[in-house]
């Protein structure tokens, strides 16, 4: 008799239930939606939801639902007409604290989302969008670091007039001295204060030595440059209004930027390459702000600036230092545990800052963020490039003491704000150029085509296989078909649970899995037939068939798994997508084709005294 113990059957049923549950979100479609989130520090609140509701209702725009989830407001619409008109409306009415982006929101029922059910995310090739691979110019990063250390070295050694000359030679700093004593003293000082500089072995002569940046410091500079650029890019992508962008580092010098649904790639390219700077200015404290704002008369030597929130402030026109002078910025806390940002300026900036802070102690100084943007717009049928400049005050604080190239900005509200400011400052000092080295754009029409064609080929291929198996193996064939169908469900549910991205090659992987998953059942069934041929009774034939085929199936699948794991680790983009679904498919097919099909066969024939199998 062939029986599975009850616990085993229960486990199988439980497993299938979970699979079906988590595959379920994929059968619901998605709603046209607008997603609103806060930029930088700002977090959207319930009040915003109310305001947006009022504003949409005032303009008689219909929407399906609106809600605040995960710090994002999601507004769903019935048709694209109202989606687009609300986007225009909200973009114009909401301040720049908000990112307004078009999105497709999966319409998974609440109870399903509550248990964590999510639909698979579709790759760019299926939903349309653009993929950029950007490369940071690391040679430039090293050159910049050399310049910085050159200046620091001079500053450190100048105090006691230790050196005769310092010059840059490629990636080396060559220092010469008047006497050997001075050299010894300098070496000690460098060891103490500039531990990132190492003496090049064998370069030292009586009155000269060569220094190089330690490899640790070099990779730190490179890694910092990469992080800065990612931050800058993220801010810029926010400006583009993209829902669910992906911006992540790839390797040591590259950044992947994926913008789903973005059609205007020309604009995306311009924005990603835009140049932004910072300026430090003194606050004009002599003239009254209210008068200036109300009368519109701006005092000579001053200029009206605004905070990001819109609050105005009068600043002096003379710039103390600009973002080009910032070489580094980091957030931390001071002795009182209040947040601060440490800034490092270059030499020239340091000197100006020292002079200014001496003169204007206890006055206020503001940090202004300036960005130059280029937008291509269509005007009277012609495409015109529109250049615009935004200037926002990101901070205005009182100068507490004199400082030069290293100073702290305190008086910040929170540690988070300090972190953001430091990031912003570093982002502003984006000095390593980036270049787009790979672009893959899929238009919306091709994306839709790909989904449709992918689905049709899966369905047709799948149905043909079902038919073929049913014809060849009768009842056993139908059991194999059940296993195959549940295999498909399991693959979909695992992809959904992992939130893996489904791409066209991924669909091809699923299709191939369907073809190969039947192999396990074919092996088993052919084996059962052989056993029947040897005049075994049906129960013995079934159990011998499964047992003998098992090892073959395991061997065959493991070797295929090896190949697909290699694909996964070496592949990029499309190849990876294929490898993921193929690997998952191989594993799930082992379960459905062996364990599940056996359970069903047991149910049908397990207690049967019949002499014949329908195989």
């Amino acid at each position, binding site marked *: 008799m062939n029986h599975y113990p009850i616990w085993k059957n229960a486990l199988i049923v439980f497993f299938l239930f979970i699979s079906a549950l988590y595959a379920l979100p994929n059968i619901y479609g998605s709603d046209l939606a607008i997603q609103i989130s806060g930029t930088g520090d700002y977090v959207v609140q319930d009040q915003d939801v109310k305001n947006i509701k009022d504003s949409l209702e005032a303009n008689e725009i219909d929407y399906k639902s609106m809600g605040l989830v995960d710090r994002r407001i999601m507004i769903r619409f019935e048709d694209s007409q109202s989606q687009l008109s609300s986007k225009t409306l909200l973009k114009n009415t909401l301040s720049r604290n908000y990112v307004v982006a078009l999105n497709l929101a999966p319409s998974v029922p609440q109870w399903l989302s509550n248990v964590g059910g999510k639909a698979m995310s579709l790759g760019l090739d299926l939903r349309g969008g653009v993929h950029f691979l950007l490369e940071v110019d690391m040679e430039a990063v090293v050159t910049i670091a050399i310049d910085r250390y050159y200046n620091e070295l001079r500053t450190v050694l100048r105090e006691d007039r230790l050196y005769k000359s310092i010059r840059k030679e490629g990636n080396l700093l060559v220092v010469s001295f008047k006497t050997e004593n001075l050299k010894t003293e300098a070496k000690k000082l460098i060891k103490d204060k500039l531990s990132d500089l190492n003496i090049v072995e064998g370069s030292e002569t009586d009155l000269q030595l060569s220094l190089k940046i330690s490899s640790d410091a070099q990779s730190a500079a490179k890694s910092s440059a990469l992080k800065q650029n990612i931050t800058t890019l993220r801010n810029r992508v926010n400006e583009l209004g993209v829902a669910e962008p992906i911006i992540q580092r790839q390797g040591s010098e590259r950044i992947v930027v994926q913008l789903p649904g973005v059609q205007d*790639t020309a604009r995306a390219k311009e924005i990603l390459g835009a140049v932004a700077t910072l300026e430090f200015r003194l606050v004009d404290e002599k003239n009254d702000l209210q008068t200036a704002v109300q009368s519109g008369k701006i005092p000579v030597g001053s200029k009206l600036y605004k905070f990001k929130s819109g609050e105005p402030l009068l600043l002096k026109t003379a710039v103390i230092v600009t973002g080009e002078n910032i070489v580094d910025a980091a957030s931390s806390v001071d002795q009182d545990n209040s947040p601060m940002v440490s800034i490092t300026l270059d030499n020239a900036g340091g000197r100006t800052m020292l002079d200014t802070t001496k003169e204007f102690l206890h006055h206020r100084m503001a940090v202004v963020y300036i960005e130059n943007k280029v937008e291509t717009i269509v005007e009277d049928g012609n495409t015109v490039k529109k250049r615009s400049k935004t200037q926002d005050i990101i901070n205005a604080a009182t100068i507490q003491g004199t400082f030069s190239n290293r100073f702290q900005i305190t008086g910040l509200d929170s540690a988070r704000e300090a972190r953001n400011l430091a990031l912003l400052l570093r982002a502003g000092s984006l000095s390593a150029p980036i270049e787009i080295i*790979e672009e893959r754009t899929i238009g919306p029409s091709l994306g839709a085509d790909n989904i449709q064609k992918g689905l049709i080929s899966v369905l047709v291929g799948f149905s*043909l296989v079902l038919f073929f198996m049913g014809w060849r193996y009768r009842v056993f064939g139908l059991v194999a078909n059940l296993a195959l169908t549940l295999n498909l469900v399991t693959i979909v549910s695992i992809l959904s649970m992992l939130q893996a991205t489904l791409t*066209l090659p991924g669909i091809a992987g699923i299709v191939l899995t369907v073809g190969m998953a039947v192999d396990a059942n074919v092996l088993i069934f*052919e084996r059962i037939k052989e056993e029947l041929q040897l005049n075994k009774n049906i129960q013995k034939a079934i159990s011998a068939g499964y047992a003998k085929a098992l090892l073959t199936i395991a061997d065959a699948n493991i070797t295929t798994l*090896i190949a*697909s794991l290699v*694909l996964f680790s070496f592949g990029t983009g499309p190849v990876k997508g294929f490898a993921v679904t193929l690997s998952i498919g191989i594993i799930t097919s082992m379960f459905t084709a062996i364990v599940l099909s056996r359970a069903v066969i047991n149910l049908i024939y397990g207690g049967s005294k019949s002499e014949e199998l329908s195989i």
Partner: protein
Amino acid sequence: MSLRSFKLPTIDFVNKRKYALVFSALLLIVSIISLGLQGLKLGIDFTGGTLIEVGYQQTADLEDIRTKLVSANFTGTNVQYFGSDTEVLIHLEPQSISSAKLSTSIIQMLGEGIDVRRVEFVGPKVGEELTNDGGLALLYALIGILIYVAFRFEYRFALGSITALIHDVIITLGVFSILQIEFDLTVLAAILAVIGYSLNDTIVVFDRIRENFLSTRHIEPVPIVNDALNQTLTRTIMTSLTTLIVLLALFYLGGEVIHSFAGALIIGVVIGTYSSIFVASSMILALGISKEDMLPSEKEKKEIDARP
């Protein structure tokens, strides 16, 4: 229904191996000559360059597009219909200034009313890296499989399966070279999948050969291999057929983007099926497999006894 009546086929595969040898050698020679002379038509994934797919409302005027490209001083361009005559594929070799901006300027030049379906730009450096990574992937896959099979079976089986795999890969690449079908990243993925598939087939046959060596009184390797091939023949054909069915569905219905991917797999599955019957088993016979080689070590024996 003769297919349903159960009777093991008794085809003398082993005796036909000399024909198979000639056939395989012929295919390999033609493939290698073609690969040597005209090579593969590498896609921009490997060469770098720009690819733009645009859709027009009406039939596209290829000459007009070519003239525009020439007058804008683009070199090494290739303009062709893609799928239908309203869709055009423009392929640019890496230009003197190779940047992502090229595609933007070309799209602007083509004018209004076109539907940009796909843009791919691959910088020359990236192309080089992808080529290296692709080659490495192939190599590592082969090594990984070699180790696994040597560990699970015996070194002669490992050599036999690797020979069959190299045979399959060279012939599949050869077909791509002879027909000058574009070879891109997805085709590389397909070739790797073919390795997995073909191996799957070979392993099933090897498994049966091992089993037969252990379970029958025969000592002669030739009838044992012949029996194993016949016993697994129905399964080999069934699995190949089901896989081919879905691949044909992909090939005809999956769209242009997946076309060469499905094509590579179809060629690979056919060649892989053939090689697992004729090439791999001939190889282990030629290497002199015998019953003694199959006797399991004490540890394995216990495992086999413990099987249900």
